[in-house]
């Protein structure tokens, strides 16, 4: 049984910069997979290597079992990529763009599928409009359609919702979910963590070319400190509570709360020390916190 994507010890250097440092992981058939990391982490570089837009210095990548270098043709037929940069050919209309893209993949008479893509992406009434005349969001939709003309089983979206309005984001996600439900494997990178949290089943995090976490979303969330309590106090934090202190933020003390029963103890210690609680709130960890923690070098 092959994987949808298998990445094995892939490294890539740009001059002195190690853009990818022995990255290995696999994505299974039908997964909805998120690749997260700050700007410059190497996400786009990894996607470029998957797509054959660049060549890794070391390691091997397979798409549906096909090596991206030695079986480039098969690998590319199985992969649809929506590039991060908003690019288009200003000479052509939407329909021309999609018909040409089908042809590059060797597909003739693709009109029925192109029409369906236009319909699903809300582009039907723009079919004969020149690419130049479309808004950024509309151009992005055309890029999604371009990635799908050859019905690839594996679809990679590199920050598809960056700089895109809310309405488009939602319709785009609805469409991508539908593709996933129909059996397509989806990989996406995004800056909006709530998107990854809402959509993806597994999450990989990258930082400075390294893979620093790779887990089921739920494991990742539960493995990190579950809860925190934020307190605004009339005086100093008693010494007995110092071990729980995580940080101070906007004049508030943030304490770890391994379980909710611990709150009782925190409050009684404060009463004993005659420190008054002005404000109290309890936070559940979300992906954003896990992310921030990991990116600052801490362990999840």
């Amino acid at each position, binding site marked *: 049984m092959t994987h949808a994507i298998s990445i094995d010890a892939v490294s890539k250097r740009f001059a002195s910069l190690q853009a990818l440092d022995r990255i290995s992981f696999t994505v299974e058939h039908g997964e909805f997979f998120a690749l997260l990391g700050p700007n410059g982490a190497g996400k786009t570089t990894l996607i470029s290597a998957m797509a*054959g837009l660049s060549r890794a210095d070391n390691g091997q990548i397979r798409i549906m079992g096909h090596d991206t270098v030695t079986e480039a043709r098969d690998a590319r037929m199985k*992969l649809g990529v929506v590039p991060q940069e908003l690019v*288009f050919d200003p000479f*052509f209309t939407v329909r021309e763009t999609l018909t040409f893209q089908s042809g590059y993949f060797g597909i003739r008479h693709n009109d029925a599928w192109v029409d369906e893509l236009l319909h699903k992406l809300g582009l039907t009434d723009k079919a004969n409009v020149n690419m130049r005349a479309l808004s950024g969001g509309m151009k992005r939709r055309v890029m999604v359609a371009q990635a799908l003309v050859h019905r690839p089983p594996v679809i990679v979206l590199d920050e598809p919702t960056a700089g895109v309005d809310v309405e488009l984001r939602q319709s785009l996600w609805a469409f991508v979910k539908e593709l996933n439900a129909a059996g397509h494997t989806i990989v996406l990178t995004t800056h909006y963590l709530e998107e990854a949290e809402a959509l993806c089943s597994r999450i990989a995090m990258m930082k400075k070319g390294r893979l620093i976490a790779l887990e089921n979303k739920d494991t990742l969330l539960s493995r990190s400190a579950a809860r925190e309590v934020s307190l605004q106090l009339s005086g100093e934090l008693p010494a007995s509570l110092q071990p729980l202190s995580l940080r101070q933020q906007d004049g508030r003390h943030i304490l770890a709360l391994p379980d909710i029963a611990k709150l009782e103890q925190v409050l009684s210690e404060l009463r004993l020390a005659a420190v008054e609680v002005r404000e109290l709130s309890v936070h559940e960890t979300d992906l954003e916190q896990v992310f921030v923690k990991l990116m600052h070098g801490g362990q999840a």
Partner: protein
Amino acid sequence: MYGFITLFKKEILRFWKVGFQTVMAPVLTALLYQMIFSHVLSQHVEAYPGVSYTAFLIPGLAMMSMAQNAFANSSSSLIQSKITGNIVFLLLPPISAPAFFGAYLLASIVRGLVVGAGVLLVTAWFGLPLPAQPLWLLAFAVLGCGVLGALGIMAGIWADKFDQLAAFQNFLIMPLTFLSGVFYSINSLPPLWRGVSHLNPVFYMIDGFRYGFFGQADVSPWLSLAVVGGCFVALSAWVMRLIASGYKLRH
């Protein structure tokens, strides 16, 4: 194969949509050259026995325009795609190096031939005879455009900025095409310059193309064919390897 056909079609449509610039403009330029030079130099000696200077000028101008436009077509299309980034849509699909090369090349040849036909059409009334050797004519038109089209692909892949491409065009392509015997028979040159002209491949394109019209030329058409054909084959093989290696296209 269908990838090749599609890319070829796209490249044709690309220049055809802006035909005013890509076809009409060079045809008009050539017409202006023809009018000015034939006026200034019509009293000039006959270039060949029985061939007036005005007639002699026409095939040279046509071949020069074909060469420049074949070069412009592939080079400007590629650099625009690279700079705007939409070249990614050609790099994601499995288009082979020969298909990629062939599509750009063939589109360049078509643009060159369309411009050449346009130039001949508007200048013919200056006294152009019917071609004496139509097959030679066609061979040099196609191969000449092919050489410059392939050179354009190379330049478009190599250049990172419009400036670099403009430099390539102004300092290499323009001198080569202008100093190739378009406006004179190189037999009228002093021996040194005649020797230098013999090193310019564009000279052989123009000389061979002229042979197609007049049945006479400065050098044997077979020599011209060998030079132009050799350049075409060598350049094509080299550019195709460049594309296959991913040079400047895939990091």
